[in-house]
């Protein structure tokens, strides 16, 4: 027991001896923490801004996005996004899929979107599959506009029209 008692008071003087030791070490952690702060600024600038594909950028390949994108550059390939804005100087060669597509530039391909807005400067070569469309005067369209109000609505209409024709043919002859 005497050994244990003697051990107990020992850590107490040892503690004050240990506390001054970390004090000179503290500048070291400070030095390592400093590089942390310069890393955050690029993250701040990158996160709040939506995705932008600027004038000078050319992409050859596929582009997929789960957030809104602004395209001012040139894309040779398909674009899949949610909200897609294509600027007046932009060129897209391929299909643009999205919930909402706003076109002020050039598309050589196809648009498949729920809501389509073709601005006055738009130049669309190819088909537009849409549910809701707005076309401003001045827009150039070379292609078909295909409204698609969901597949469940389109199918029964075609089914009812075909039996009528079949019935009318035998009565006529």
């Amino acid at each position: 027991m005497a050994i244990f008692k003697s051990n107990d008071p020992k850590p107490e003087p040892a503690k004050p001896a240990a506390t001054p030791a970390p004090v000179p070490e503290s500048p070291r952690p400070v030095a390592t923490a400093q590089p942390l702060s310069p890393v955050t600024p690029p993250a701040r600038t990158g996160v709040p801004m939506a995705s932008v594909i600027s004038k000078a950028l050319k992409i050859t390949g596929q582009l997929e996005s789960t957030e809104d994108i602004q395209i001012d550059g040139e894309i040779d390939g398909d674009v899949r996004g949610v909200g897609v804005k294509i600027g007046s100087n932009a060129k897209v060669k391929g299909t643009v899929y999205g919930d909402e597509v706003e076109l002020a530039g050039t598309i050589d391909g196809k648009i498949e979107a729920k809501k389509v807005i073709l601005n006055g400067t738009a130049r669309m070569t190819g088909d537009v599959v849409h549910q809701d469309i707005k076309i401003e005067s001045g827009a150039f369209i070379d292609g078909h506009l295909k409204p698609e109000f969901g597949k469940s609505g389109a199918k029964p209409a075609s089914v009812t029209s075909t039996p009528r024709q079949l019935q009318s043919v035998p009565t006529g002859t």
Partner: protein
Amino acid sequence: MFALTRRPDTRKAPDRKASGRESAGSPVSRLGKGVKVRGILEIEGELVVSGQVFGQIAALKVTITPDGFVEGDIVAREVVIGGKLEGRVYAPTVLVEITAQVAGKLFHHTIEVMRGARVDGRTPWRPLNFFENLDHLPEA
């Protein structure tokens, strides 16, 4: 100790200011977190990658943020890696930040690797002529 910590700070500060001025003048392209690109990206300006890129990037400056991931080759004048990179980099100036995870080769003339960065691969030095005359990438 203090001298060591101050030196990189003074170096970084003008770099960031300069990059901010560049971004105001020349167009900056940003690929957000939700963006995934497969293919070749060519830009006469700065590209900030917070999303995923599978393919080649050719730009003046490329920044990979901590959220960004690039698989492929990057050719630029300046590359700042803060995220994940698997592939090769050909740039006279390379900065590897502490959040970086790099697997591959970093061809450089000047490189800075922050303490804490994970670099798995080689960092070959090349003279400036090598980057100026870089028409096509040497195959791995």
